[in-house]
């Protein structure tokens, strides 16, 4: 009898670790494949396109009027369909807006739900805006805070001391003044400050480079050097003024690029990247650290979309022009 009990106890202990798994096999709570978004494509204006599609589908048949109605989006929301709207100073709007015309807000106004505007937008000083989409131009005055994102088909002009939330994208130009915070920017081009870069764009009149690259322990490239190949620096590197790189530049450490350097390829670094003033990079800039773009630096050229990706942060001085996309997981700032 004792042997039988011991045997049963032994068998129980043996199968004990498998019992939760057997239960999962039976219940199949977590049996689906891991989710992959099969239709996902990278689009810097994805938020706006997706929002417009959802909003316009949900509001088919709605007519203009002052009343506030229910609309079924991902959940039930209140919405007002209205002609051009002027939001008085200090007013708070806590429902969705569909504005067929233009939107103007006074100082210290708050729009705490999403707003879609078919015309132009002018946001007053120190507003708080959740989401704003416009088919026309957009002007954001001093001190405004965007809680989520904004997008305009036309030019966006952002004045000083704004917080641009997660994403600000424009189908046209994006002007951003000093002391603005951001995570992602998109514009063709993005222009910081009031001063425009007047750096002439170089012509790439040399044959395309092969994949071959040179790896070097050099820590400094003298001023005026011309390098006609892709180059990988295994340490921190400082690139002297007026140097020209016909290929890509990569460093395992930090990259400091002085004034008036021209790089026809991309710049990659495991550390920080600091671009000197009037320097031109025609490719992408990617850093596992932070990126600092000095005054009047220029990234890419008209009609060519490139990216500036700084994992820990991106700081941009005034007069910088970027044709394309800027993103950081940390903090972005115009200074």
């Amino acid at each position, binding site marked *: 009898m004792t042997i039988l009990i011991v045997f049963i106890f032994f068998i129980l202990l043996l199968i004990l670790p498998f019992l939760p798994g057997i239960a999962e096999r039976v219940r199949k709570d977590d049996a689906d494949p891991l989710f992959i*978004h099969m239709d996902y494509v990278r689009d810097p204006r994805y938020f706006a396109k997706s929002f417009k599609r959802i909003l316009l589908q949900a509001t088919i048949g709605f007519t203009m009027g002052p009343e506030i109605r229910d609309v079924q989006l991902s959940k039930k929301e209140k919405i007002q369909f209205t002609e051009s709207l002027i939001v008085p100073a200090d007013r708070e709007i806590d429902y969705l807006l569909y504005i067929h015309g233009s939107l103007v807000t006074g100082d210290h106004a708050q729009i705490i739900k999403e707003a879609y505007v078919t015309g132009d937008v002018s946001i007053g000083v120190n507003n708080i805006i959740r989401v704003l989409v416009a088919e026309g131009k957009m002007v954001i005055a001093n001190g405004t805070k965007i809680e989520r994102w904004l997008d305009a088909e036309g030019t966006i002009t952002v004045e000083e001391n704004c917080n641009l939330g997660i994403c600000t994208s424009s189908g046209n130009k994006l002007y951003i003044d000093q002391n603005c915070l951001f995570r992602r920017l998109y514009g063709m081009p993005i222009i910081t400050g009031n001063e425009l870069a007047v750096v002439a764009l170089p012509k790439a009149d040399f044959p395309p480079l092969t994949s071959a690259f040179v790896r070097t322990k050099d820590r400094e490239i003298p001023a005026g050097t011309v390098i006609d190949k892709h180059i990988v620096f295994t340490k921190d590197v400082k690139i002297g003024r007026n140097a020209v790189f016909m*290929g890509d530049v990569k460093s395992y450490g930090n990259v400091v690029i002085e004034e008036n350097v021209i790089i026809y390829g991309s710049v990659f670094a495991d550390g920080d990247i600091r671009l000197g003033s009037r320097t031109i990079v025609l490719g992408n800039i990617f850093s596992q650290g932070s990126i600092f773009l000095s005054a009047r630096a220029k990234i890419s050229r008209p009609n060519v979309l490139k990216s500036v990706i700084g994992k820990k942060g991106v700081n941009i001085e005034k007069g910088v022009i970027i044709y394309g996309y800027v993103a950081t997981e940390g903090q972005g700032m115009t200074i």
Partner: protein
Amino acid sequence: MEVVILILKIYLVFTICVMLIYLLRHFAFTLNRLFFEQRIYYQDIIDSEIRSITVLIPMHNEEKVAGQILDLLVESAYPNENVGKDGRKILDLLVDADYPHDKLEIIPINDFSSDETRIILENYANKYPFIKPIHRYDGERGKPAALNEAMKHAKGDIIVVFDADYLPPKGILKDIAVSFNDPEVGAVMGRVVPVNTKANLLTRLLDLERTGGYQVDQQARYNLKLIPQYGGTVGGFRKDVVMSLGSFDTRILAEDTELTFRLLINGWKVIYANRAECYEEAPETWDVRARQITRWSRGHNQVMLNYLWPLLFSSRISRIEKIDGILVLFVYTVPIILLIGIFDSLALFFLGEMQIIAGMAAFIFVGAYNTFGNFAPFYQIGIGALLDGSTNRILLLPFLLFNYFLNTWYISIGFVEAIVDKITGRSAKWKKTKRFRSGDIDTILPSDRTSHASSSKKAEIK
């Protein structure tokens, strides 16, 4: 007899040391993934000057899956069309991918197929000018030979490879191609996710293995600047570089691992793209899995035998990469070391000589022997599932014991075959993994494609 016992004891200590080294390695990877800074991949780069790519899809009797990948890839080139919605296959998916068609070329390689593969490919070629199938009915068989021939025809700067059972999402080609903006990247590997998890216990266990292997192991190796492996599918490489290095060695079964080490010793980097996720079909029967794992082991050990010395003496690899490279090369040797160690310990036990593992040593001994349960040890898999936000599947971890025994045995067989290959100079014969799929894509993919619980959590993980 004393000499024999001494040898047995030395071997046992050696086995424990090997186990402990791999334990520490995988534990370091897991901790890195949990608590340390993650390196981001290049997928955030948006670039209008896109590189030309050629997608190669080796196919041997793939009529069950051939159309699906092409439809998905064609969606890249014609993003606004609903291509092949009726009964979509792999070719449909490729047709569907997000890539400008003037920069995209798709070469399905019909490698000695005797089924309808040839007709399916010709139908696609007639519809889409950038699908240019190659039909091979003479010369050397097998994936490496097929890839070599296709590379001679390929016009793209970058070669992207998918196996025929894969289901590439729309954006994956750009996610893979963007990494080649980095001048020293020779190859990139994406993440493989089994799609047929619901089929049976085996597919669920293989899903767990993949989770640990990619979400933790490969990403940690990328974080630590070690050696992420190119896996031969859901990945890409520079055509000019690989051709200049002599293309694929057709005598080696693991052409992917061979490419990883060839690139490495020639100064190129292999990187990992966790975001470039793609569904695959995992083997649904134990015998198919056994054949697959034997082939992997044989091929990997062929690479180990051929590349150990070049790795050790290469001047283009850092010291830390060399250490990791050695550990990667010996991964498929460890099971046979352990298997012999188990018999060794049994012999010592019955000889009454097991007193060498008293006290603290016994603890280490037990820990070490319980560590190498799989390619990715259990805690690595558990953390991988946690990062994926998919935690109930962790309850199945004890069942990996069965995979462990299967892997240990068949990896050991693969090791022996690789040794015989090396000694006799015989060439290995490529054997395709059996496909199980039936039905079109929309019945295979998860039904809720936009609101799965894990998607939001995964999105936070780079």
